[in-house]
């Protein structure tokens, strides 16, 4: 294989951003004439492999090992470096998830191969893929020039490719095994937990209703909740809303909060400070409603409404019911 896509397990399903990496591999593979393999590993390797074999790729590798049942950076970096060494692909693709950020730099260091991470775009330069990432608070974009031979590691920021474009097919399954030195795993993880009841899955949310200072006061939050409920959307916010104590911190989108890339980001009363913009500019559709016509977020909007959010929200809720 030329491209190896490394999957992440999300409770027995392929992580949304791993699916986007598969979509990216298919697009880049077909444009640059590269074959694709997929690696499913960890305790749900066989379930992920079963899901992945229905995609149009050459083969799906599954790797089970008792030392990979729970995520540890030591164990996962060791395993993935091992597989890359034996399979020797030219490119290794990942979704730029929190887990990948945690262990893939170690794979890069073990292999002495570059990790082009947080990639947002790709172009085909006469059969050679060229990758770009954002830099300087997302105000600039930089091409990343690998100076070494492959394997080159690449992780894609959320929504760089759309999982809707994945081509179906029938891939062969191959079970592989590796030796893992258990004494090299010096991390003992506990069970994951949610900090507060109703913690929100913003990074994988399809629809987000996000509020800013323009919502006025905490008493107006239920209005937004009703709109989010009829839309089936998650609620997010800019920093001032969290700082004011109107919503818990895990709702915050931006440089000190989460990065999101939903199908729809409905921004209500958010002016669009750069610290917020960096967290949501990858959204596929952005609707901005703000009474200030000069709010910078309108620059990013696909649709804009200059108007009073408190007047529009209840009407919109009613119309969608």
């Amino acid at each position, binding site marked *: 294989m030329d491209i190896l896509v490394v999957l992440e397990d999300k409770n027995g399903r392929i992580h949304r951003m791993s699916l986007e990496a598969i979509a990216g591999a298919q697009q880049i593979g077909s444009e640059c004439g590269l074959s694709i393999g997929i690696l499913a590993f960890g305790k749900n390797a066989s379930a992920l492999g079963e899901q992945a074999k229905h995609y149009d790729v050459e083969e799906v590798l599954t790797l089970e090992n008792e030392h990979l049942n729970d995520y540890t950076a030591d164990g996962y970096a060791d395993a993935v470096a091992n597989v890359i060494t034996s399979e020797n692909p030219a490119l290794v693709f990942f979704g730029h998830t929190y887990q990948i950020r945690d262990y893939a730099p*170690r794979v890069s260091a073990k292999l002495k191969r570059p990790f082009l991470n947080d990639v947002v775009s790709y172009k085909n330069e006469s059969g050679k893929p060229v990758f770009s990432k954002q830099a300087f608070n997302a105000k600039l974009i*930089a091409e990343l020039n690998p100076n070494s031979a492959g394997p080159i590691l690449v992780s894609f920021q959320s929504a760089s490719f759309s999982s809707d474009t994945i081509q179906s097919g029938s891939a062969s399954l191959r079970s592989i095994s590796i030796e893992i030195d258990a004494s090299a795993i010096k991390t003992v993880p506990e069970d994951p937990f949610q900090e507060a009841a109703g913690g929100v899955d913003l990074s994988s949310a399809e629809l987000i209703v996000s509020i800013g200072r323009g919502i006025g006061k905490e008493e107006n939050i239920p209005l937004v909740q009703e709109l989010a409920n009829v839309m089936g959307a998650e609620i997010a916010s800019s920093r001032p809303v969290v700082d004011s104590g109107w919503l818990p911190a895990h709702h915050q989108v931006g440089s000190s909060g989460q990065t999101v890339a939903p199908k729809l980001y409905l921004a209500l009363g958010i002016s669009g400070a750069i610290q917020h913009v960096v967290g949501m500019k990858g959204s596929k559709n952005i609707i901005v409603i703000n009474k200030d016509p000069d709010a910078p977020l309108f620059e990013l909007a696909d649709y804009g409404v200059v108007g009073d959010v408190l007047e529009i929200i209840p009407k919109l809720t009613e119309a969608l019911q």
Partner: protein
Amino acid sequence: MNICVLIKQVPGSEAQFNVSGDGSWIQETELPFEMNESDNYALEEALQIREQKGAGEVVIVSLGPDRSQKVIREALAKGADRAIHINADAPYNTDPYSIASTLANAVKDERFDLVLSGLQSEDLGFGQTGVILGEMLGMTTATLVVGTEVQEGKIKVKRELEAGWFQWQTMDLPASLAIQSGLNTPRYPSLKGIMTAKKKEIKKLNFVDICNVDELQSFAGLSVQHTEKQTEMIEGNIDQIVNRLVDVFKNEIRIN
């Protein structure tokens, strides 16, 4: 407990950028520079751990040009004990691997129990350096760290997972931790701190003297992000606006 804190000086978050002529970097004149935000939290965490444990050093390691002295002094004024400044001039290396390798060379004779870094820099934004350095120094590593508890020979850290989930993990020392913003409240330097910082040691090294690996990757063709978006402004009375929004939801964005 000896703690190394990696500090980087970066352009301020409100800065507007112009790309240099060859597209390899930005024009730096008149840009405001400051301590990378998450590095400031890493420094605070280091100072708090040292205060709890009552002994050991907090050592700042910073790679950058002369202007980086400002954030190094700031960190010393807040309470760090000494610093190592690896001087690097433009054109800057942007490769996390060779930067981490150079940092590893600079600290190879130190015996750090912990390396703390900010989660990622606001300029390059790779978020790899601290992790690679940990790997190179044979340390355990963790990123997105939002809490720490030092134990005997180990450290227990709270990691942020995606979507509001968290996880505690216990790691052997030495460890390299990439710190997420917001886990503590960074202090301001006291007047006394500012005065004593002037007498603290800053060991100076040159990047070119201690970098002994090739860059694995480099920046090429920096450019300004253009928003080529056509914005449709929806106008009319409230009912017309709401009707058009519903139409956009259902027929253009196609939400179910």
